[in-house]
């Protein structure tokens, strides 16, 4: 791994309840903040007790190298997140990272370079980032938007949630000049439907979009299909149950179409790749979506 991994006790700087079950957690972790790339994640443990045993992976919703802080955005879904929600300001949590492969970042002038043969999209040209977020999938996209903003390309956010009262931290997106469109399942804000409907209804012809998507598997699969049908490059950040988070246990695999590394071996249609190590971000056409 190119970047060194760090294991550290990080003090909680801010811990804010945004919604009944959604929290924003700011941690002081200067060395991780300096190294982390958008789309990477960290492993967090609240204590060293044997129960719950495993760390919880969180993507970074904000990376502030200047302030030496990282921000997590999470929803309470089980024991680990419920325990985390109870950690007060000033207390420390154990964390290690930054882990995994992040998003493809823009070069100067908002150019996206894609060094892989066979992709039909013309390489090395200015493109427009389109962020597609389902629910808490919004979290790892903001640091990416910061990078595109720095290259003069604010882009477009398509954000789908169940109901309007679950929209969180939209102000930060608007500050970056990102155009925001919203879909809610109950129709309370924006269009009624999912973010898939939103993408299908958005005219991107001639805008040379690159799609960055994060959310549940069925959503990502649908986004991939729309992107492929339009010849748009598309990256997805996958979720899978993890144990170690560092590539050792092979617990969090998906089927990946990765280049044949072993010249002697029989060619195979797919391999199990580790979401924690080869991912969590993949080009969507490198993932086997069926079965």
């Amino acid at each position: 791994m190119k970047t060194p991994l760090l294991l550290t006790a990080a003090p909680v700087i801010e811990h804010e309840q945004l919604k009944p079950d959604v929290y924003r957690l700011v941690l002081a972790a200067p060395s991780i903040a300096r190294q982390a790339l958008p789309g990477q994640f960290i492993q967090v443990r609240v204590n060293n007790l044997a129960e719950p045993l495993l760390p919880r992976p969180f993507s970074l919703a904000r990376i502030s190298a200047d302030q030496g802080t990282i921000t997590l955005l999470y929803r309470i879904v089980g024991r680990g997140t419920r325990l985390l929600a109870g950690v007060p300001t000033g207390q420390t949590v154990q964390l290690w990272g930054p882990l995994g492969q992040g998003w493809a970042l823009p070069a100067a002038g908002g150019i996206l370079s894609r060094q892989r043969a066979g992709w039909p999209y013309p390489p090395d040209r200015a493109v427009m980032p389109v962020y597609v977020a389902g629910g808490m999938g919004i979290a790892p996209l903001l640091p990416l938007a910061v990078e595109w903003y720095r290259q003069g390309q604010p882009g477009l956010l398509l954000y789908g949630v169940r109901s309007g009262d679950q929209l969180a931290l939209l102000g930060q997106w608007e500050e970056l000049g990102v155009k925001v469109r919203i879909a809610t399942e109950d129709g309370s804000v924006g269009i009624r439907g999912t973010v898939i409907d939103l993408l299908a209804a958005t005219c991107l012809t001639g805008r040379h979009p690159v799609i960055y998507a994060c959310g549940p598997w069925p959503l990502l699969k649908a986004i991939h299909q729309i992107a492929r049908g339009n010849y748009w490059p598309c990256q997805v950040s996958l979720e899978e149950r993890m144990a170690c988070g560092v590539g050792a246990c092979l617990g969090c695999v998906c089927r990946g179409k990765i280049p044949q590394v072993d010249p002697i071996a029989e060619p195979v249609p797919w391999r199990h790749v580790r979401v924690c190590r080869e991912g969590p971000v993949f080009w969507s056409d490198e993932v086997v979506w069926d079965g």
Partner: protein
Amino acid sequence: MVDLQVNLGGLVLKNPVTTASGTFGFGEEYAAFVDLNRLGAVTVKGLTLEPREGNPAPRVAETPAGMLNAIGLQNPGIYRFIREYLPSLVTDGVPVIVNINGYSVEEYGLLAAICEATAGVAALEVNISCPNVRQGGMQFGLSPQSAAAVTQEVRRHTRKPVIVKLSPNVTDITEIARAVTAAGADAVSLINTLLGMAIDVGSRRPVLANVFGGLSGPAVKPVALRMVYQVYQAVKVPILGMGGIYTAGDAVEFMMAGATAVAVGTANFANPRATLDILEGMAGFCLQEGITGISELTGAAH
């Protein structure tokens, strides 16, 4: 100073802390957190002759003070391991224990011959106890006859230390331990995971795609400790003790039950530095107790 050196069936370790197969990858995954050369040995992920993709996801599930896994021996095959992963481990200077898994008795022999011919392999751990594969795996470890047959075949092909890894999913583990010892094992390691399962009440389906998986972590420690204690009384060969070791105190318990060395497994997931924390804690315990050689602890509870 405490003398930490131990002798595991001819494999001399500078200290008794090793890694449990399948929980430490090929070492490099944890090299950022742990100076590998400080460990007694690294036991690598289980290897087969041919590459294997393993079971579909979900493969892991957290359970009270533990976890289930059903990886299904995903590995690049022993040849690619030797070409791509072994050299850097050897450079680190830590003894490498290679965990081998065959589909047949003959294949175990072939894997042993390959290990015998590979300079960087310090010892072999013969896995006759993987619960997550359809063919081979645990099947060989459930009867004394087949366990002995595998051990004998491996022994025939190597002079390196042979450690046979035993399954806890048997009525009497001492029977298997006696059989593999009589067949030429230099040491035994125990325990592998306990077969278990979890159900998602929302979907009314098993959590693991493989339905069953191996239980590990602190939850299994009392069972593992009991088995190490029993096997210590049953056979003369050294024991590599493992199963839920989470603290230095746990590791000391295993040594007192009869282990010559210990392996840290699932604890690595909870704390990437677990191996070194446990090693430091064990040395501290010896100092505190006025013990000059850590091997004095082995079997102290009997």
